[in-house]
């Protein structure tokens, strides 16, 4: 990273993949720094993406740290910067600074079962983590993914998900009945209650819309997961990435610096300002 933390490094978009179309469009962008550099990061960390002339937006890194050729970001079209990103094409230049935040404590989870629970775009922050764990499968217990979205068309990484089923159990869900869907119908927390049965020696990591996270945590608690075995990520509006611009705080914590990854044991005692 540049010694001036506010100075982004120009990077080229080398691949754009359309994940979800329509109102809640999601695209995955792979990028390479123009100067050939790369930065090392941990699963769960984020980077500040610049569209020059539009501004910056904090996005989780969805590629795994061992991927050397590119950084990947999977982005829901929402505000000014993400809309501008969605209008960009392969070969276009953005700026990147980071990595920011704490990341998942994957080293501490060795020997444990890991259950990944994602909803909608919330699979993106888990994606690099999931792949890192799968790549080092022998170091962990059972690995399982539960992932749901409003409809099957809203699921991200669709092709890769079917590919992933060869390695680990993947339980998909959609919110409402649709023709040709033979997996679970209902909200993610309901699927959690149905499929997750083994809290002993297990860690659950969940990311998705706030309402989904809330009910997923309730479901996990009901199943017997202890607070320090449940992990989630928090997002808030950010401008700097280093705990200085002053807006992403929950209590005395700055999400960009002390987060975005929290265990429920930590998060439940902080103000609900996220």
């Amino acid at each position, binding site marked *: 990273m540049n*010694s*001036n*933390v*506010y*100075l*982004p490094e*120009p990077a080229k978009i080398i691949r754009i993949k359309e994940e979800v179309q329509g109102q809640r469009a999601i695209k995955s962008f792979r990028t390479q720094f*123009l100067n050939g550099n790369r930065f090392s990061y941990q699963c769960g960390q984020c980077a500040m993406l*610049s*569209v*020059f*002339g*539009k*501004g*910056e*937006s904090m996005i989780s890194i969805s590629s795994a740290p061992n991927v050397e050729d590119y950084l990947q970001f999977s982005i829901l079209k*929402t*505000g*000014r910067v*993400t809309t501008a990103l969605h209008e*960009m094409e392969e*070969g*276009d*230049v*953005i*700026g990147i600074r980071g990595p920011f935040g704490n990341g998942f404590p994957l080293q501490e989870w060795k020997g444990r079962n890991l259950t990944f629970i994602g909803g909608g775009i919330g699979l993106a922050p888990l994606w690099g983590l999931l792949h890192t764990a799968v790549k080092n499968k022998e170091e962990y217990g059972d690995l399982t993914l539960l992932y749901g979205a409003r409809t099957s068309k809203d699921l991200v990484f669709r092709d890769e998900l079917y590919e992933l089923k060869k390695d680990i159990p993947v339980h998909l869900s959609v919110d409402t009945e649709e023709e040709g869907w033979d997996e679970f119908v209902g909200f993610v927390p309901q699927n959690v209650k149905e499929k997750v049965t083994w809290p002993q020696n297990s860690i659950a990591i969940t990311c998705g819309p*706030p309402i989904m996270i809330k009910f997923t945590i309730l479901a996990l608690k009901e199943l017997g997961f202890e607070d320090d075995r449940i992990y989630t990520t928090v*997002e*808030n*509006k950010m*401008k*700097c990435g*280093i*705990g*200085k*611009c*002053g*807006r*992403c*705080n*929950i*209590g*005395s914590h700055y999400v960009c*610096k002390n987060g975005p990854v929290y265990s429920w044991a930590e998060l439940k005692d902080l*103000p*609900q*300002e*996220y």
Partner: protein
Amino acid sequence: MEKIITKQSVPEWIKKLEDYTIYAPIKNEDSWSFEVVEPRQPEVIDLNYLNSSPSPKKVVFPPKEVFFEFTGSIYDRMELKETLPEGRPQVILGIRPCDAAAISRMDEFFSEDVKDPYYLTRRENTILVGLVCNTPPSPNCFCTSVGGSPHGKTGLDILMTDLGDDLYYVESLTQKGVQIMDVPDKPFRQAKSEERSKMRKIHTDSVKNITREIKDMDTIGTRLDNVFNSSLWEEESMGCLRCGICTYLCPSCHCFDVNDEISSTSPLEGKRVRTWDNCQFPDFTMHSSGHNPRPERASRLRQRIFHKIRYSQQNFNNYLCTGCGRCVSNCPVGINMIEILNKI
């Protein structure tokens, strides 16, 4: 170094500091602000001032500053030009001890963990010459409740005390302070021991003159935690107009926004700028989805007071409030931090 300068000699001293940009209190109708003093016109400086309306924080943390300029095309390549401050040395003359203490809080904040090169470059080149508050410059001064003093030295390079009789007692506190007192044809003379005693008496009295107080500050942290979910915040913030004057005038508020400004679209030319921002504005925390973690006035007032008192205590073992009283004196609807903290 402890010296005496006559009030009439202050302009002469300032004229000798020609390598420095001098900021000093200048009267404009019925209020003061810190402005750049033209090298040949030091007579405009008014050290018989109360306190400045806006705090002098703008000297080290300007309301708007450019991080970098960009030029090029998003289809091809972008050139970035870093725009760090030039680093011309500057002096803030006559800063009140509360405002200097506030700058020292920002020093700690902007150098903690990842450093802020823009703030720190300006700060390293800034010399603070403080002026003791013999009597409180505002009826809402409460520096002594938040660890400060009307003759406090925190953050200062020089402390000046008005001895009356047209004399200032001038004490250097750092090497930077010695440096600007060491000018040719010295306008200073040695301080006599009776002048030193007089200075001490003024300092002792200055503390007694502060009458506003926040009570039981030693237990304020846990008492604040206990009222986090109280209806107090709703009651106290009822009148808030979201004007943001409290944090705009505050000497230690440092939250900021970052945006791009463009001057040409083809080629794309523009700059990334930092501007002061304000936690009392609803869009300060609003996500692009429309979700807002602090959607009501109550949660925003609570954030301001918790950030100043509780979170800063947890993160820095200090308060992010130095008791200048500007937020109390200038709130158009009378939201009063001193009274709120005395209620809990």
